[in-house]
């Protein structure tokens, strides 16, 4: 795998982000634990330090500490069939360890069920453990179309959070700062969208494995200047790769679309496997989930509500299928790899029917591999490898 120079940049960025979180209390800043699908823009004007337990769990997974941390949660009595991000986070809380030494203690939790119902249960447990409030924004699922009453409901909840944050931080809500945050968030999302669109170039200058790493900033630092600066640099690098004719995978022959959360502990092995077959995963449904935002600074709460309601895991399979087919055409892929992820039911249940529809509607083949995002104990590497190789052989 050809490493992007921006990889080092990102490492620094993420490192200093967690460092800032660790020292936040020393500087009298408040810390919020935030779910990946929560409208973080509302917190930014209060100068709150945000950390993302999901991102933290993915770091544990990539460092191959996932199983060990999961075991600690299991020893407390949590079922092995529960989400491994949760088990990993819970284990890290119990043991006080992780590759970054555990997350700092939160002052409050902020989460949305737009990525899963799991967030509700997970954060309830954390809220009881730390004895801190849980700000829950209920985001009704978009079954066929987004309803006006759902938008009103979400916008009203966002309005209600503001006074709480004012009393927590002792600061007044700064409208000016809020507008700036929304602008930064919008710019950041646009830059990220551009990053991913480089994958449409033939040969592609990046693979989804690059995107999985680079997404850390769009998830955890959305609405900040640092994230905007980072993605500008990244896009320049990708632009220059194209100009110099540098491909992420030499002699790119097969172009693929990835579905679902990465198999964090197996990233290297999988990326080499595809590379050896001159196959490039040029796009994925996961990182694209952060690539749409039509934020309207004139009507901020309502536009946040709309944006966060229609994120990828909060929409029906019909709407998912539309987006997948759009990606297939936009990136001109030859096949699709679905990760059937034991830990993520909203992402994985339905894949069998989606795979069938994709084959019928676009004619491209789909392979499904079963794994888990951070719990390597349920992953049968050899079986997955054989399945992928056979799939690539059939395409090649």
């Amino acid at each position: 795998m050809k490493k992007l120079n921006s990889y080092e940049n990102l490492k620094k960025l993420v490192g200093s982000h967690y460092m800032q979180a660790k020292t936040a209390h020393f500087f009298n800043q408040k810390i919020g634990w935030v779910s990946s699908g929560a409208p973080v823009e509302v917190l930014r004007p209060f100068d709150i330090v945000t950390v993302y337990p999901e991102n933290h769990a993915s770091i544990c997974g990539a460092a191959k500490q996932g199983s060990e941390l999961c075991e600690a949660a299991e020893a407390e009595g949590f079922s092995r069939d529960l989400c491994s991000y949760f088990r990993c986070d819970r284990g890290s809380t119990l043991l006080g360890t992780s590759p970054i030494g555990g997350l700092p203690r939160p002052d409050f939790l902020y989460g949305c069920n737009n990525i899963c119902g799991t967030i509700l249960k997970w954060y309830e447990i954390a809220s009881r453990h730390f004895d801190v409030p849980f700000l829950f924004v209920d985001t009704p699922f978009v079954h066929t179309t987004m309803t006006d009453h759902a938008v009103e409901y979400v916008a009203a909840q966002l309005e209600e959070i503001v006074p709480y944050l004012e009393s927590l931080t002792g600061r007044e809500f700064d409208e000016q700062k809020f507008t700036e945050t929304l602008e930064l968030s919008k710019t950041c999302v646009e830059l990220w969208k551009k990053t991913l669109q480089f994958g449409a170039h033939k040969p592609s200058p990046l693979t989804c494995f690059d995107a999985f790493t680079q997404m850390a900033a769009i998830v955890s630092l959305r609405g900040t200047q640092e994230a905007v600066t980072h993605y500008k640099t990244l896009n320049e690098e990708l632009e220059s790769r194209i100009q110099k004719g540098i491909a992420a995978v030499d002699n790119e022959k097969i172009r693929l679309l990835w579905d679902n959360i990465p198999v964090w502990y197996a990233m290297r092995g999988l990326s080499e496997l595809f590379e050896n077959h001159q196959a490039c995963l040029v796009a994925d449904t996961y990182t694209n989930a952060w690539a749409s935002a039509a934020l309207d600074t004139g009507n901020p709460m309502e536009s946040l509500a709309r944006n966060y309601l229609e994120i990828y895991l909060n929409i029906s399979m019909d709407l998912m299928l539309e987006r997948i087919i759009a990606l297939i055409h936009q990136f001109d892929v030859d096949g699709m790899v679905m990760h059937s992820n034991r830990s993520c039911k909203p992402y994985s249940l339905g894949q069998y029917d989606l795979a069938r529809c994709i084959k019928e509607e676009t004619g491209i083949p789909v392979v499904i591999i079963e794994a888990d995002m951070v719990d390597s104990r349920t992953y049968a590497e050899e079986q997955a490898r054989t399945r992928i190789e056979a799939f690539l052989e059939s395409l090649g």
Partner: protein
Amino acid sequence: MKAALTTLDLQKYLDQKKKTMRIFAHFCSFTPEEVLHAAGILPVRIFGSNIIEKASAHLQSYCCSYAKRVLEAGLTNPFDGSVFVHSCDTMQRLSDIWGYSIDDGFHETLVLPVAVDKGIEYLTKELNRFTRGLEVYAGEISDTALKESISVYNDNRNLLQELYEKRKGGHILAVVVDKVMKASMSMLKQEHTVLLEEFLEEVELGEYSRPRLILSGSVVEDPSILEIIEEYGLICYDDLCTGSRYLSLAEEQSLRGIARRYQGMWCPCRTASAPRGQYLVEKAGEYDADGVILLLHKFCEPHLFEAVSIRNSLKEHGYPCLQLELEDQTSPEQVRTRIQAFCEMLEG
């Protein structure tokens, strides 16, 4: 016992009803059955069978058996329509999958709020959207018809509450309670009410003995587990979707009334004002129970998440708790051993 309700062949009853009424499948205690009733539709709660063949082509191995069972039922014998509500992640996706693989005349998902308390306004509007959508299929649903249906449901649920009151004084076999509850969830309400009245008059209470158990969980699809448990102890109260979770009444006879009714129903898929364990401790006191059995579906996230804190609070208050995590194919001998050992422990 001779009451007609205890000997009723539900399948035969439904086969008969099918000739005169449209039957809709539903899957959750939060289904607005009253609205369907007002539209002249018979809502039938589906439990499926344990032979899974067709559903495996649509659902992964790590999906709970309830979703598999009901999908299998739909794929085998389609209904006139189906109504899902947003309960857990699995049931939400199952609604999508159902739409892709089963061609029924009406398929809708009521997108329930997760935070029912603060979502009453939203929920009332969502119920209204659902009702107007159903009207396109079934014709006008007047306010009068809706009011009447809500009364019919309240009457029935009042009687079901009476049944649960009786359980405090003496024993009623859990399989019998299960049968009464499931019949209520599947029969035309007013017809069930007639049988239920007769049942309540005739029911003879069994001996009050120990150990007394509370059974807590979601859906009990197959009542044979109840029989195994009652070989060793008595189930004096349940905290199940196929039991007490169905009992609460609608105080206003309107869509808002239906919405408010959901506020009083506890479910791990909703936000709760207090931890679940507290509720069970209260009920254990009220029903003079010796211990609690948590009957959970393997892969059922909402319930499995809560199990740890429930067990801890029960323990704190001196109530032993046995967690049974079942998948359809779990060896019954292992399950029996746990139940027997648990009751041996309670007997001391």
